[in-house]
C-alpha cells in the first residue's frame, strides 16, 4: 500500500468520488431503459399498478419482465466486462492500445460463433439436444476460452508468462483464426453470411433470463476478481522487475488478469456478439478524467462501461423502432467522435 499512498491525493479523491456519481448515473440510465421502448408500456404506471395491488396486463408483464429487464441486466454485465477487461489488459500489457482481443478471446469466440452458424447442420444430435437454440453462444464461449488457454500455454515457459510473446503469438493466432473463419465464410450460404455479419456487430436482441443465469455469474465473479487487481497492475506499471522487487507476486497478477479477462469477455461476447469500442475507450476516458491509479480506475471502468452499454442499447432499440440497430454500430458511431474530441482537447495535457 505504501506505493499508492504517495500518489497525488486529489486525483484519487476525485476518482473515489466518481464511484458515487457513476453508480447514481447507472441507476438512472437503468430505470430509463426500463421506461422507454417501442411499446407504450412504461415502468412508472406498471409500478403504480403493483403498488395499488392491481395485476399487470400480459403485455406489461412480458415487455417489462421478459424483454426489457433481461436486456438491462445483460447490458450492465456485458458493458462492465468489456470495460474492465480493457482496463486490465492495458495495465497488463502497459500499452494503451491493448484490449481484451489481445488474449485471443475475440478471435476464438468469433471462430466459435462462425463455426456454429455455418456448421450447425453438421453438429451431432446429442449436442443439438444439449444446447438447443444456444449453439452459437456456447460455441463462442468455448472458442474464446480455448484460444486464450492455448495462447497462455504458448507464452508461458517455466512458470513465467512472457507478455511480449503473448502479444506476438496472439497476432499469429488471430490471423489463423481469421483464416479458418474465412474458409467457413466461403462455404456459407447468403443467409448464414448475413447472420455472421450481424453477429459481428453485436446485439442484445436475444437477451433472456436463461442467458442471464448462464453468463451472469461468470461475468460477475470475474469482474469482481478483476477489480481487486488494482494494486498489482499499479506495480506492473513500473516494469516487471521493479514490481517483483516491491514484493508483488507478478506471475499471480498475470494469471489472474488473463483468466478473469478471458472469462468475463468470453461470456460477454458469447451472449452479445462482438461489441467494439467500449473496452478500449472507457478506460482511457477515465484515465484522462481521474488519473491512472488502477484501484479506483477498475471500479469506475465497470460502472462507466455498464452505463455506456445500457445507454447504447436503449438507443439501438428506439432509434429505428419497430426495427432494431446492431448495438456495435451505436457504440462506435456515437462513441468514436466523442472520444476523438476529448482526445484532441486534452492533447496538451496527456501523454499516452
Amino acid at each position: 500500500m505504501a506505493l499508492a499512498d504517495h500518489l497525488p491525493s486529489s486525483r484519487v479523491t476525485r476518482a473515489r468520488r466518481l464511484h458515487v456519481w457513476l453508480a447514481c448515473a447507472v441507476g438512472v440510465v437503468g430505470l430509463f431503459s426500463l421506461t422507454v421502448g417501442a411499446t407504450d408500456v412504461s415502468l412508472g404506471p406498471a409500478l403504480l399498478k403493483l403498488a395499488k395491488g392491481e395485476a399487470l396486463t400480459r403485455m406489461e408483464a412480458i415487455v417489462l419482465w421478459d424483454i426489457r429487464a433481461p436486456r438491462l441486466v445483460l447490458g450492465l454485465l456485458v458493458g462492465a466486462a468489456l470495460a474492465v477487461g480493457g482496463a486490465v489488459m492495458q495495465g497488463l500489457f502497459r500499452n494503451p492500445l491493448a484490449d481484451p482481443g489481445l488474449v485471443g478471446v475475440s478471435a476464438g469466440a468469433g471462430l466459435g460463433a462462425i463455426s456454429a452458424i455455418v456448421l450447425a447442420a453438421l453438429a451431432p444430435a446429442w449436442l443439438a439436444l444439449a444446447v438447443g437454440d444456444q449453439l452459437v453462444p456456447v460455441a463462442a464461449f468455448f472458442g474464446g476460452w480455448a484460444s486464450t488457454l492455448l495462447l497462455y500455454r504458448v507464452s508461458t515457459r517455466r512458470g513465467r508468462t512472457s507478455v511480449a510473446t503473448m502479444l506476438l503469438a496472439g497476432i499469429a493466432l488471430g490471423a489463423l483464426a481469421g483464416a479458418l473463419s474465412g474458409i467457413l465464410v466461403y462455404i456459407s450460404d447468403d443467409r448464414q453470411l448475413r447472420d455472421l455479419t450481424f453477429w459481428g456487430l453485436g446485439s442484445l436482441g436475444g437477451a433472456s433470463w436463461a442467458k442471464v443465469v448462464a453468463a451472469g455469474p461468470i461475468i460477475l465473479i470475474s469482474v469482481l476478481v478483476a477489480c481487486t487487481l488494482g494494486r498489482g497492475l499499479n506495480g506492473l506499471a513500473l516494469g516487471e522487475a521493479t514490481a517483483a522487487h516491491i514484493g508483488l507476486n507478478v506471475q499471480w497478477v498475470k494469471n489472474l488478469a488473463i483468466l478473469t479477462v478471458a472469462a468475463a469477455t468470453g461470456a460477454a461476447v458469447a451472449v452479445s456478439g462482438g461489441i467494439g469500442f467500449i473496452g478500449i475507450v472507457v478506460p482511457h476516458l477515465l484515465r484522462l478524467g481521474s488519473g491512472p491509479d488502477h484501484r479506483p480506475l477498475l471500479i469506475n471502468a465497470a460502472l462507466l462501461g455498464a452505463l455506456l452499454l445500457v445507454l447504447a442499447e436503449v438507443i439501438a432499440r428506439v432509434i429505428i423502432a419497430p426495427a432494431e440497430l446492431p448495438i456495435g454500430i451505436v457504440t462506435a458511431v456515437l462513441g468514436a467522435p466523442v472520444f476523438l474530441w476529448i482526445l484532441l482537447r486534452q492533447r496538451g495535457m496527456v501523454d499516452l
Partner: protein
Amino acid sequence: MMHRRAFVGLALAFTIPRNVLWAATGARDVIAIGGDVTEIVYALGQGHRLLARDATSTYPAEARSLPDVGYIRRLSAEGVLSFAPSLIVSAEGAGPPEVIDILRAADVQFAEVPEGYDIDAIVQKIKSVGAALDVPDKAETLARDTRTAMDAVLARTAQSNPSPKRVMFILSTQGGRILASGTGTGADGIIGMAGGINAISEFEGYKPLSDEAVGAAAPDIILMMDRSGDHSATDDELFGLPALSVTPAAQNRDVVRMDGLFLLGFGPRTADAVAALNRALYPA
C-alpha cells in the same frame, strides 16, 4: 411513438367505413415477414389486415407504406409487440429464437411459410399463407390460377428454343470480383424455368468466381438484379471486367436486369417473371 399512435388513431377515425369492412373480413392484426409472403397476402386480398411488414417486403406499393420491423433474422421482440399483432405470417427462418419464444409467450400466433424454388413450392406457400389467414378458399383459387399460369408459361418456355442459352446470374461485381449463383438457388430455379441453362453448375449457392472460371463458364447472357447500390453496374463497367470480356455475353453485350423480388420471389408473380425472362433470353 406516442405521436405515431395519435396519428394512427386520427387516421382510423377518418376511415370508419373501411374499419367496418375490416370487421367483415377479419381484424387488422397481422404482420407479414418476407417479400414473397407479403405479396401473397396482398394477392389473396388480405392486405388490409396487415399492421407491419419486414424490410424485404417491397411489393405491392401499398406494402411500402406499412411500418418496417427490420430484418427477418433480427426481429425486435418489443418492436413487433408494439403493434399488438395476433398473427405473424413469416417466411422460413425468422429469429432470433429467443424473440420468437417471447412472441409465442405473448399469445402471438406464428405461421411459418416453407421456402422452395419450383411450382409445388409456390402453391404450398400460397396454401400456407391462406391457411394462416383463414381464407383457404381464396388460397385454393389463387393456387389453382397460379399453377395454371405456371404450367402454361413452362409449356411455352420448354419448346421455344432448340439450343438453350447459358445464363450466368451475377449477384454483385464488388471490387471486380464476380459473385455468381451456382445450383440450388432461386436464380438457378428461375433460369431453368425460363428455358435457359445456368452457366455455373459446379457449386451450390452464391460464391465468388475466379476470373478463369468465368471464362470457362462461357455465358451467353448475364442476368442481374435491377436495383441501386453495389449490385448495379453499368454495361460498360460490367463488360469491362477482364473476366467477363472474353465471354460470348460480352461480345453481344447481352445483359438482362430484373427486379430482385419479381425475379426471385417465387410467389404469384413468378409466371410473369418466367415469361419476362424468357422473352429477354430469346427475343423474337
